[in-house]
């Protein structure tokens, strides 16, 4: 009697395993076809399957309603990026990001000249040049981990970090985005003017719509520039705020 109950339980478990594997896409085509035949001829089995599937749907609803992330967790992650940035792994982090991003470094030494270039000068599909509005943003906007500051009808920018260079100038890493492309660059402040030192295509941020293969030779140029130019760690939020407030003095 006990053996019979045990056998029944084992049989039931095996059947449930089979149904589960079917739901989870773990059966071979032949096994699927076989089970589908059984389902067609055994209403009880089909009901059991439907029951499993409905419970799965409920479970998803339940857990997705509980997926909110505590602010402390996102803050920890965000701060880690900032902290990492302050202790030079930010350079490694940049390299890692660029490994995916496949930065194509293009232009060096583009100086903003408002009379010549006017506002928001951008060559089609080319890197953004140092426009008046980008220079103003670099001059006044604090670094941020996310979000954008609009610099024209078609462009937005994000300052990423600020660091001192060996020649005594201040430099800022930044992103510029338009509908068509994203760029990552570094500009340094020479004689009250912002000069683009290096800039490259930031493909990582474009990946949702486009995949671009990485170029090992190009992708580290921005990171390498920062590593060579920086004489100290990136500024913290308070230090940067003080610098912006005092007009970079």
């Amino acid at each position, binding site marked *: 009697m006990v053996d019979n109950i045990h056998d029944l339980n084992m049989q*039931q*478990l095996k059947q*449930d*395993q089979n*149904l*589960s*594997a079917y*739901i*989870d*896409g*773990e059966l071979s085509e032949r096994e699927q076809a076989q089970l589908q035949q059984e389902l067609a001829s055994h209403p009880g089995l089909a*009901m*059991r399957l*439907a*029951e*499993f599937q*409905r*419970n*799965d749907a*409920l*479970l*998803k*609803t*339940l*857990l*997705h*309603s*509980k*997926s*909110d*992330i*505590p602010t*402390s*967790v*996102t803050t*920890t*992650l965000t701060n*880690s*990026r900032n902290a*990492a940035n302050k202790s030079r*792994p930010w350079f*490694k*982090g*940049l*390299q*890692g*990001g*660029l*490994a*995916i991003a496949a930065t194509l470094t293009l232009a060096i030494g583009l100086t903003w000249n408002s009379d010549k270039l006017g506002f928001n000068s951008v060559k089609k599909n080319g890197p953004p040049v140092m426009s008046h509005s980008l220079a103003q943003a670099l001059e006044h906007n604090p670094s941020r981990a996310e979000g954008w500051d609009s610099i024209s009808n078609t462009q937005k920018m994000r300052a990423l970090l600020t660091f001192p260079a060996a020649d005594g100038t201040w430099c800022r890493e930044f992103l510029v985005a338009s509908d068509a492309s994203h760029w990552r660059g570094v500009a340094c402040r020479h004689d009250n003017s912002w000069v683009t030192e290096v800039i490259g295509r930031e493909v*990582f941020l474009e990946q949702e719509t486009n995949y671009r293969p990485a170029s090992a030779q190009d992708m580290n140029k921005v990171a390498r520039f920062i590593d060579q130019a920086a004489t100290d760690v990136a500024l913290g939020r308070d230090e940067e705020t003080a610098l912006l407030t005092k007009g970079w003095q």
Partner: protein
Amino acid sequence: MTALNYSQRQGLMTELAALKRFCLSLTNEPADADDLLQLTVERILARGMPEDAHVAKWAYRVCRNLWIDELRSREVRYRFSQTESASNDLTASHQSAGEDEVRLSQVASAMGKLPHDQRAALVLVAVEGRSYAEAADILDVPVGTIMSRIARARRSLAETVEWTPGDE
């Protein structure tokens, strides 16, 4: 082992919601899940991960190991199966009168009664869409064990949640 690079941090950020659900599957209590998530992120940041590591799998494993450590330290390996009436917060917000709410409450209650290893397997596969092989890898058990745990978990849910013929 190195500090997280940019893409790993981004990957971890993207994975947080799924990781939170996994935490919940282990702890069965939102407050504990939040704590476990925080610990997991801190541990990963502190110890880093190999450059070629799969971010999600790595994070799940760290999370699971931390939870096992926690259980060991408390010497109460299955405390949640014994305290569901006192601490089952999954149920708390689903007490309105509608049929769906009742069933959600029943699912929450049934989940609370499952051993955490069955809950974790079920959530990884049925909610997160992981394959049996991936779940086995994350939970460090054979694929056959995953198959068995999921079937038992679904069976337990089916015994608790009341469906009648014709229900959609």
